[in-house]
């Protein structure tokens, strides 16, 4: 038995210690906003926050989260950075198919929470682990700048 703190709620789970958080969230807790993309920490679709830090839930066992605060896409809008990111994502129509966007929003929210006015290099560093096959990268970059109140430059 393990107790997880998910979006502020304690959840008691009878689950093996090495079960990745991704499958615990999706299959056990039916919280499907966190997405499966690669299972190997390569694409970022499964990004969640543990104590505010972005982690890839597909390669993070539940044992690593015991006693720590887990935040998922379902609750990120309640944080100041998450709220700004979601608003900017909507204003610039970032998502296309939308499948990777939970992870993108989580990585961007962590970036903004840590770095209020990120540079292009900051954005590259924080977001390079998140793949988008629809190629929404130009809008992700612009939306992060919009959320941060940084002026973007024209091509």
């Amino acid at each position: 038995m393990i107790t997880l703190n998910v979006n502020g709620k304690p959840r008691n789970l009878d689950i093996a210690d090495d079960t990745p958080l991704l499958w615990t969230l999706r299959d056990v807790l039916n919280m499907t906003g966190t997405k499966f993309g690669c299972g190997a920490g390569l694409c970022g679709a499964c990004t969640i926050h543990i104590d505010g830090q972005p982690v890839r839930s597909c390669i993070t066992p539940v044992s690593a989260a015991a006693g720590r605060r887990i935040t998922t896409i379902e609750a990120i809008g309640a944080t100041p950075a998450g709220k700004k990111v979601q608003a900017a994502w909507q204003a610039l129509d970032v998502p296309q198919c939308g499948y990777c966007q939970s992870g993108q929003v989580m990585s961007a929210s962590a970036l903004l929470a840590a770095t209020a006015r990120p540079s292009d290099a900051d954005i590259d560093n924080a977001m390079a682990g998140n793949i988008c096959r629809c190629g929404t990268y130009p809008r992700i970059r612009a939306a992060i700048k919009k959320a941060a109140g940084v002026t973007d430059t024209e091509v």
Partner: protein
Amino acid sequence: MNTRDLASPSRRNFLTATSAIGGGLLLGFGLPARGEVRDTLTTNAPFAPNAFLRIDRTGKVTFVMPVIEMGQGTYTSLPMLIAEELEVDVDKVAIEHSPPDDKVYANPLIGAQLTGGSTSIRSTYVPLRRAGATARVMLVTAAAQRWNVAPSTCRAQKGVVVHAPTGRKLGYGELVDAAAKLPVPEKVALKEPADFKLIGTPHRRLDTTGKVNGSAKFGIDTRLPGMKFAVVAASPTFGGRLVSVDEAKAKAVPGVSQVVRLDDAVAVVAIHTWAAKQGLAAAAPQWDAGPNAKVSTADIVAQLAAASEKPGAVARHDGDAAAAIARAAQKIDAVYEQPFLAHAAMEPMNCTVHLTKEGCDIWVGTQIPGMTQAAVMKLTGLTREQVRIHNHLLGGGFGRRLEYDGTVRAVQIAQQVQGPVQVIWTREEDIQHDMYRPYYYDRLSAGVDAQGKAVAWSHRITGSSIVARYFPPWIKDGVDPDAVDASANQPYGFSDIHVDWVAQEPPGIPTSWWRGVGVTRGTFPVESFVDELAAHAKRDPLAYRVALLDKNPRSKNVLQRVAERSGWGKPLPAGQGRGIALCIGFGSFIAQVVQVSVDKDGTVNPTHVWCVVDCGIQVNPDTIRAQMESGIVFGLSAALHGQITIKDGRVEQTNFGDYRVLRINETPRIRVDLVKNLEAPGGIGEPGTSCVMPALTNAIFAATGKRIRKLPVGDQARTEA
């Protein structure tokens, strides 16, 4: 195209009106499926509506529609078409998929659906506006009758009919029951483009909220009471068979309930995906590698090369290219090769099935619900009514979800499982058991006169025919019209042109559609070879193209505009270069300039892409820009890194580590400009991908002098060993 000509339906029963269940107006109308347009207009087959517009007593407008959203923005652009003519705000138009268990909508809607081929706007631009206009006319008529005034004294605006002289008003909701009793007008006038209020104006997407807060539901997000999870593994070699599994070890993994054996695959069923995955590893399936156990990419390429020695089915024959090349001062030859490609959509393949004696419910995101339903009927022996497809948002399509292989596999597994089961492909399984964009082998030749001017063009395409499997009637005189697209109809004005097609299937490797289909396939060799001819003639690649496009003003225009935008011709530092390419496809004209910087170690960094699009009438300009950005990133991923290679009968790549795709730090700055005109709307989902590949490799040539004739670029731009 004159919009007025399109406004009169050719058959009076093209629209039907009835009272909706629970009150209100229900208009049924036809949206042509691909290849079906002509049949609908000319045959006497009974009209079966496949799309519905419902307005209820509260004035709520619902569009029940057959086109699926996979990122391309149709959930916004199609409601815009209706709202424009119906005179309501776009966000007042709600979208529903056909409820599969609803007798009114189910069968006609699911009959002939295919979302693909950049067709969504092209096939709906007139019918949706006509439906909106028809409903508006009926609502205005109902209001005029209620007030006992002439309809011409009434106007519709924002969901309300207004009697102008008196200022009286009635909401659409108050008029729907009366309108439903009126005859459907045979002709309605559609707006002239000058009167559009919505079409051509950027409109925010309607599907964004759920995609930024995790509530949007994709097929993989299906959750049902008692649902189990299964992870599947197919024979790693194409055509191999399952020999044995260690069922005891699999079942020793906590949570594993069952091992499902199929002829050529195995699945482990458990209480969650992780347990199933662990169980599958423990099961350690053993395989008989089968007849393709020795196949490698090199064998496949050798077969293609040999097949391309002989003449193929003729796709185009202007003048006598062979004779003109033979007597030319010089002959230029080139072979272009394009690799197998996976789709690698972000949502891995998955399908949830609940199969009972009574029927089969399927939860999946698919571009082809009708074909999927038919395949499941064939597999299970169930009737159409018993096979219910619950379609979902697609976590990327790119052509992968134009196939039903995943659903068939999931149903095969469900045939052995009690209760609902979600079958998931790991990323490795998804990449190693895709249906791949075929390997293509193109031979091109040109005859050049003493002044360096090209006088004749010959192009032979060799590869797998997707059409021959997917839709054989499209094959005409042995020519696969998709495989020769953008090649047979290339726009350049050479007097002698010969294009032919040789079908050569790779042993055991399943092939299918991939973003841009034949246009992507053809644009790379054509735009590369034209660039070669320009270089050979020592001409500027832009000027060389423009001189050959006298009969093609739209092509010429996009090329010239993208050149202006990109600063074409301005000097760049050593190691940098600009490349240009033209793409004509899906009814659209696109030109792009890519600027690259090539490092000393051969690493290619695309830094800028300028894109000019002439897709005729623009419905949602911001969606067009988004689709270009998307297509460019997708095409650059493939051109720089994308390839599936075969060794010992199996795919070598496994995950995003060795099937590389572009990341944000590798993405160039992209600028998209749109050409405004009133030409018929063209498709925009795919040609951005098609155009960028040759624009990239032409830029590499400009930067390094190295001509890339084989994709992906990989490390070919390295100049020193």
